[in-house]
């Protein structure tokens, strides 16, 4: 069965510094990959997704993630974080043809002033 591992439960980083949130999934079969963001007191919102094609995908607010099939990873990066990026980030994966999405346990991003 598919599983998702987010190695860090919390990541503190100074404002304007770069950040990487790590995500690995278990199965190497054809997958769809997602990053969701949850701001305080809200539901989850889609940040970006990989379906096929270019392995580097970008969001509108400066985040990017790279699909690495050999390492079964989909790490999320941003070159310079802002206080408004404070949130919990969830990596998710679904096997093609499956009805369900499997979520990681989340990484809480703390931006330090």
């Amino acid at each position, binding site marked *: 069965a598919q599983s998702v591992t987010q190695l860090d439960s919390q990541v503190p980083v100074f404002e304007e510094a770069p950040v990487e949130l790590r995500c690995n999934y278990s199965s190497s079969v054809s997958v769809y990959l997602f990053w969701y963001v949850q701001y305080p007191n809200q539901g989850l919102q889609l940040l970006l997704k990989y379906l096929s094609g270019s392995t580097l995908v970008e969001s509108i607010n400066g985040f990017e993630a790279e699909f690495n099939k050999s390492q079964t990873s989909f790490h999320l990066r941003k070159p310079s974080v802002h206080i408004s990026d404070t949130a919990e980030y969830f990596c998710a994966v679904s096997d093609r043809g499956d009805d*369900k*999405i499997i979520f990681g346990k989340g990484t809480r991003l703390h931006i330090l002033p």
Partner: protein
Amino acid sequence: DVKVTQSSRYLVKRTGEKVFLECVQDMDHENMFWYRQDPGLGLRLIYFSYDVKMKEKGDIPEGYSVSREKKERFSLILESASTNQTSMYLCASSFESTEQPQHFGDGTRLSIL
């Protein structure tokens, strides 16, 4: 704009009560999902539905049931609430294919006393 609406943001109930959590989406999505979110555990799927009157058990269905009488509405029922069901409950919906992202409501924070 897409919208998933959960009927209550906060709810307090007593042990043994029958509890109904309601979710409505206005996007004509086929799939609907109920998750619970607990610190350190991420999102865990309780039930999902891929059509009216259809339901499938998720990872933690015990103590819960669901109802989907209309396409836009998906109800989660706690048959006899217990304190270990105190949690944040998130509803989501999506189009049929899993390449389509899930859209989430803002959540219901349920406390069972």
